[in-house]
């Protein structure tokens, strides 16, 4: 995985927890007379657009805002990889864990609201292009190393 885009679900997304014999369970969804939790989550449309537009080596993770055990270390790792430290890293992580956030390689592109799917795709592609450019520049600056090939333009 070269790049990671993280989408944090909305405030009403299905949550886990509650303990054995509760949890996010809907045993009668299939074949049941009624659907208990309607699938309303804006993250879905943004996710589908991103998944369709981005190459397969870009991981797109949809995460519940309650899943801090994974989310916080992931945001810290990605932020540090971008060179963020101290207060800047804290601000980035705090913005990233908000509901309906869009984070690309540690850069928080949206926090507390999600852009329209097309706008989200544009923002992520721009961020990825900048990241690729930075990689090329860094590699070229390092003596004795062959710079990687520039990314192919999107289809």
């Amino acid at each position, binding site marked *: 995985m070269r790049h990671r885009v993280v989408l944090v679900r909305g405030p009403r997304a299905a949550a*886990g*927890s*509650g*303990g*054995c014999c509760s949890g996010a369970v809907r045993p009668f969804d299939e074949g049941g007379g009624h659907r208990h939790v309607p699938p309303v989550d804006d993250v*879905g449309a943004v996710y589908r657009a991103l998944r369709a537009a981005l190459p397969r080596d870009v991981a797109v993770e949809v995460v519940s805002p309650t899943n801090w055990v994974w989310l916080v270390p992931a945001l810290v790792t990605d932020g540090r990889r971008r060179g963020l430290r101290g207060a800047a890293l804290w601000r980035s992580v705090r913005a990233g864990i908000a509901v309906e956030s869009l984070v690309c390689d540690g850069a928080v592109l949206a926090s507390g609201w999600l852009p329209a799917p097309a706008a989200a795709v544009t923002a992520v592609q721009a961020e990825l292009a900048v990241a690729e450019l930075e990689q090329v520049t860094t590699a070229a600056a390092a003596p004795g190393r062959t710079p990687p090939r520039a990314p192919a333009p999107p289809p």
Partner: protein
Amino acid sequence: MPAFAVAAVVGVLFFLGYRYYSSYLARKVYVLDPAFRTPAHEFDDGVDYVPTNKHVLFGHHFTSVAGAAPIVGPAIAVFWGWGPALAWIVLGTIFAAGVHDFGSLVVSVRHKAKSIGTLAGEVVNGRARMLFLAIIFFLLTLVNAVFAVVIGNLFVANPGAVIPIVVEIPLAMVIGQYIYRTRSSALIPSIAGVVVLYALILVGNAFPIELDGLAEALGVEQTRNVWVVLLFIYTWVASRIPVWVLLQPRDYINSHQLFIALAVIAAGVIVGMNTIQAPVVNDVPEGSPSFFPFLFITIACGAISGFHSLVSSGTTSKQLDTEPDARYVGYMGAVGEGSLATGAVLAATAGVAASQADWEALYPDFATASGGATSNFVDGVAVFANNLGIPLDLATIFAAVVVISFAATTMDTGVRLQRYVVQEIGEIIKVRALARNLTLATTVAVLIPLAMALLPGGGEAGYTFGVLWQLFGTTNQLTAGLALSVIAVWVTRQGRSPVAVLIPLVFLLAMTSWALVVNLQNFVEADNWVLAPLDALIFLLAIWLMVEAALSLRTAFRERPQPGAEARPTSDPAVARANPTSPTDEAELGQTSRDDRP
């Protein structure tokens, strides 16, 4: 025996189970295929069906299955000694729960991520779906009754926990509103919620709330029953409001508490170097239930729990990225729950008593043991927390708050699910009012478990709870039996050996039936004509399950592909019916059958 040494040995066994047995299951029984296109990819909608990183999915699965039940069962079962209780937790986790949780996830993934109830109808037959509905109805009734009694007992024993738990309700609602309106992070306000909750322990300790006077004024013999009635009034309201208002924010808080409690148990055992004071095998008084079969009913969650199949096939299977991830998510989820149960055993044997005589005073007979089990867990965890420098009185309230929070959230969800079941039954029997009228459906969903919780039982304060818990265990094991029979039929139809699935299935059904028969005999002899018919009904469901499972397995054995034979594109009629043209149907599954050949 040092508690830390026991925990280390259990940890090593769990590791070996995951490393070798789950690997065997993945290669030979479930034959995981990295190339299989999971429903998360096939129906990828970004909402329910999302290919999800296995570590992310494990977080969801584990927090959904771990809670109060793996605490309560082991805390009762150490009555038979810590040896049998721990042996069942370890063997049950490795050879039963792992097979069950992992298997129900794989079978659901192979059937478009359908729920186990629907799969029972498709893989076994239509009657199995009715059976599933009936078992779930009883399971939820008993869950709600049992947890109301657990909370009632803990409130009576720990009046200092009342204020934190009661204030947690508006606190969670404020957090829910804050997150919803500001659209900010759930993490920081929920951590703040945990801090406020634990700060309120100081207030609760200073102002303990006891309802003895109210109980006396109302003429109620047991104060616990006043709490039970209040709890059901609360859940009647709570189960009718949207989940995001209260249930979800409280889940946020509870998810932190799960990890905090596990960390406190682990660190407390290491720092305090407590030793287990209970006997390995307890010489129980004459007339007590024998550990064969009741141990295997008393510890359900923590060894094997049918409820996990609902989670595996409900939300987890819709998010599985690749099929090999099922091993990590499903099997490791069972190991996580087993670890919590192990912590409960240590708390109720090493933490709660300073000597064997102290322990025997807490577990003199089954009635006292079952009635005081959760309090013993609470006191045990309090000692572990005390090892870390927290004053004992505050540590006790902390542990009570953890258990009550889990149990209360379980009740909220349980009553809500029971309402769905009542509505579902209303639709099946065509009683429109029951299906459509929320007030009526919720009232029915509350009144049935309330009646169960207030039953006089055998007359002793703790006896009702012990019996209710065993009935809960049998019903939970029946759900597990149903899921295992679905898995066994599917594995057999693939032409693989179902032995790994049949061993826990046969064992569970034998123990459940045995326990039900013994209980039925006891209820009839005691002229308990409320519990006796209920027990008989659950026994009939067990027999029904065995007949259905045997018939389906016989058919599956006859139809199973012969080794070396060409894979039939639609060898599984159920899958062919459910999935006539999909690329993920048995045309691909047939290829995995060929992978079985040596």
